[in-house]
C-alpha cells in the first residue's frame, strides 16, 4: 500500500484486518468442540476438533504473517510502536500470570487444609508411593529449563553483537533443551501411576503441569518462528521485536515452572 504522505506521528494506524474476528470465532468453536470431546458427546466430533485446532493455528499464522508484513516490508513498526507492542505483551503476560495464579489458588485451597473426605492429609491417602519424586525427572527438567534460559540469553547477546552463526547455534540449543523438557514431561505423564481423575491431587497436579506444558509448547513454537525468521534474515539488530517477545515469554514459562516445581513437586511430596 503506497503512502503518498508520511504521517506527522510515529504511531501505526493499523489497516482493517479480518483476523481478530475470525480468530475469535475459530477459537470459540475449538473450545466448544474441546468441551464436547471431554464429555464424549459425539463420536466423530473428535475429528472436527483436530480440524478446528489446525484451522486455529493456521489463522494465527496468517495473522502474524500480516504483522510481519507490516513490520518488515511496510516499515510501520517504528521505535514508538515497538515500545507500545512490548507494553501490550507485558500486559498479556500479566493476564497469563493471573491465569496461573487462579490454578495455584485452587492447588493451595485443596492442599493447605485438606478435606476430611481425603483424610485431612496431603497427599491424600493412597498416594504415598505414587507421588513423583521431585529429585528425579522434575529436578532434571528444572535444570534443563534454567539452562535453556541461559542459552537463550547468549543467543540474544550474540544477536545484538551481530554474530549470526552463534545466534543460530544457541537458539537451536535452546530449542533442543526445550524438546528435552517436553520429552521428560511426556515420559512422566505416560509412566505416572495416577491420572487427572484421581482425587483433587490428580486434578490440580495435571492441570497445573499440563497448562504449563502447553505454554512451553507455545513458547517453543514462538522461538522456532524466531529461528526461521533469523534464517530468512528478517530480523535486524534495531528491530527484532518478535525475537525479544519470544525471549520474554520463554523466561515467563521458566519462572512459572520454578513455582510449579517448588510448590507442587517439592512441597507436595
Amino acid at each position: 500500500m503506497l503512502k503518498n504522505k508520511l504521517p506527522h506521528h510515529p504511531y501505526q494506524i493499523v489497516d482493517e484486518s479480518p483476523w481478530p474476528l475470525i480468530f475469535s470465532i475459530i477459537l470459540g468453536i475449538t473450545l466448544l468442540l474441546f468441551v464436547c470431546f471431554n464429555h464424549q458427546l459425539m463420536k466423530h466430533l473428535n475429528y472436527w476438533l483436530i480440524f478446528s485446532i489446525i484451522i486455529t493455528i493456521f489463522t494465527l499464522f496468517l495473522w502474524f504473517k500480516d504483522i510481519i508484513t507490516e513490520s518488515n516490508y511496510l516499515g510501520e513498526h517504528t521505535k514508538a510502536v515497538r515500545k507500545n507492542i512490548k507494553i501490550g505483551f507485558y500486559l498479556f503476560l500479566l493476564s497469563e500470570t493471573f491465569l496461573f495464579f487462579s490454578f495455584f489458588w485452587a492447588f493451595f485451597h485443596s492442599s493447605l487444609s485438606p478435606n476430611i473426605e481425603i483424610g485431612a492429609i496431603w497427599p491424600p491417602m493412597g498416594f504415598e508411593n505414587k507421588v513423583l519424586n521431585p529429585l528425579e525427572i522434575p529436578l532434571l527438567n528444572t535444570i534443563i529449563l534454567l539452562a535453556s534460559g541461559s542459552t537463550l540469553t547468549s543467543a540474544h547477546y550474540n544477536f545484538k553483537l551481530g554474530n549470526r552463526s552463534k545466534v543460530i547455534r544457541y537458539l537451536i540449543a535452546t530449542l533442543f533443551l526445550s524438546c528435552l523438557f517436553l520429552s521428560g514431561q511426556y515420559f512422566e505423564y505416560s509412566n505416572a501411576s495416577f491420572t487427572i481423575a484421581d482425587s483433587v491431587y490428580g486434578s490440580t497436579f495435571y492441570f497445573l503441569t499440563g497448562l504449563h506444558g502447553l505454554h512451553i509448547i507455545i513458547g517453543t513454537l514462538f522461538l522456532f518462528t524466531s529461528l526461521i525468521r533469523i534464517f530468512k534474515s528478517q530480523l535486524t539488530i534495531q528491530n527484532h521485536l518478535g525475537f525479544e517477545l519470544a525471549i520474554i515469554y520463554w523466561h515467563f514459562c521458566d519462572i512459572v515452572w520454578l513455582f510449579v516445581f517448588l510448590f507442587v513437586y517439592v512441597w507436595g511430596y
Partner: protein
Amino acid sequence: MAEEEEEEFTFKTAGFDARFPNQNQTKHCFQNYVDYFRCIKAKGEDFIPCKQFWQAYHSLCPSDWTDKWDEQRENGTFPVPI
C-alpha cells in the same frame, strides 16, 4: 432422666480445642474420631483415656457421618491410615 437415683447425669460437650477455633467444627469431629480409633489400636480397647476421644466425637459428630465412616473402616476405604 431415669438414672437420677444412681448417678448424677452431667451434660458435657467436647470443650474448646485451640486447634479448631472457627465455627466449622468438621475437622474437630473428624480428628477425634480418627484419634479414638488410633488410640484403641495403639493402647487396646480397655485403655480409659481413649474414652475422652470417644465422648468428644459422639458429642460433635452427626451420627450419619460416624455411621458412614464405620462402614468405610469395615470396607477398608477409610481415607486415613489408622
